[in-house]
């Protein structure tokens, strides 16, 4: 602090840009080291709306840093706002995935130990995992963030498909990896049923909430597996090509229905 300060005329010329380069430069050099003169410049600012810029700055720093998953989505080429929409699904907050992974790990372990019963358990649980995660990822009861999303004029179909793809991209490798522990072809047999169930949930979500749809699908599948198992058929029955094709048809048909009825997605909003 030199005790030397800018006079009012110089400051006025500087702010109004009516000074010469040399004078402006000397003002700028002085401002760098003089807190008092800086404080005198600040009230004169009319070039930008300082309050608005502050609001934007505060909003920007208060938003949590994008999660690893969101950054991955961006790397994959998704625009930032879509990456955020896809990633805010509660499924990616870890809790659900951990739960799903734990169930699958348990099932795979049981199957790996070699009991036929364990293998049945794996076949009962594994195909349901993706459709449950999809349902959780956009059911409003699970995700308060969804409400404003659905209200904004954002194509709901695109959001749901993006999320579904994201869920599958996350869930499939995890489940496949676990499946490697399970003996035989079973690890891969669940893949088509899983995709079929996801499609059914998507199609059913044009009538009922995705979570209810997923519950219904789960109940139906578990009952089916239980019925087949109690008739002491070997687990290999589920692996038959015929049944796999049936699941493929189911997936294609459901997806067709989902696309045909996509306008009804807007009715999802008043879920209770």
């Amino acid at each position: 602090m030199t005790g030397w300060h800018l006079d009012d005329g110089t400051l006025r010329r500087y702010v109004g840009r009516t000074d010469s380069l040399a004078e402006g430069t000397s003002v700028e050099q002085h401002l760098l080291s003089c807190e008092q003169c800086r404080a005198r410049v600040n009230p004169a600012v009319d070039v930008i709306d300082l309050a608005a810029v502050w609001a934007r700055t505060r909003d920007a720093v208060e938003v949590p840093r994008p999660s690893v998953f969101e950054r991955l989505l961006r790397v994959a080429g998704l625009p930032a706002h879509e990456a955020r929409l896809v990633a805010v699904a509660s499924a990616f907050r870890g809790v659900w995935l951990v739960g799903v992974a734990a169930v699958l790990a348990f099932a795979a372990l049981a199957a790996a130990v070699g009991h036929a019963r364990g293998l049945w358990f794996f076949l009962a649980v594994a195909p349901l995992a993706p459709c449950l995660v999809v349902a959780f990822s956009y059911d409003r009861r699970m995700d308060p963030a969804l409400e404003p999303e659905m209200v904004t004029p954002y194509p709901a179909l695109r959001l749901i498909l993006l999320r579904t793809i994201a869920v599958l991209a996350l869930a499939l490798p995890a489940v496949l990896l676990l499946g490697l522990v399970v003996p035989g072809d079973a690890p891969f047999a669940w893949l088509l049923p899983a995709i079929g169930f996801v499609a059914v949930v998507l199609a059913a979500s044009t009538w009922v909430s995705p979570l209810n749809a997923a519950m219904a699908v789960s109940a139906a599948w578990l009952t089916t597996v239980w019925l087949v198992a109690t008739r002491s058929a070997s687990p290999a029955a589920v692996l038959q090509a015929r049944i796999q094709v049936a699941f493929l048809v189911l997936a294609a048909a459901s997806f067709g229905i989902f696309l045909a009825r996509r306008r009804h997605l807007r009715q999802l909003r008043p879920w209770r």
Partner: protein
Amino acid sequence: MDSRPGDETLLLAVAGRDMGAFRTLYERHAGWLAIRLARRCNDRDLVADAVQDTFIAVWQRPQGFRGDGDVAAWLWGIAIRRLVSRMRTRGSVAAVFEKGGAAPAAEDQVLLSVEYGDIGQALARLSPEMRAVIQAVVLDGLTAREAAQLLHVPVSSVKTRLYRAKARLRAVLAEGSS
């Protein structure tokens, strides 16, 4: 001096995620940064963006200030580079060239003789393009590449103009002292 916290103290608080300290820092510095940036770029939206980017950068890396020199100078170094990078992504905005003419008034002469002596007149006799380069490279401390992006001219032009401007200044100053 009063007991208000210094800028270094505020930066430490910002590193501890103190939003109040961040706000104080913004209120102290955003204004003069905006004015100084606006002297280098005519587009006010870009200036606003650059100020915002600057403070976001401060929030993310307050430890970037190593305690040497003034916090204000450190902030300016960030701000001018944020402006350059904003202008690079926009591409179509013309940087401000200092207006020529306007012979300095009497009190300016006093100010200049205090801080710069004859350099003021020497600068005034340069062409606007040369002054812009001197301002960007010598006074703002940008690299030739950054100055080229700010002024929207090739790097080679920045280098030749800088070379000629320095030669010009040297000649004018030598002439004045003889």
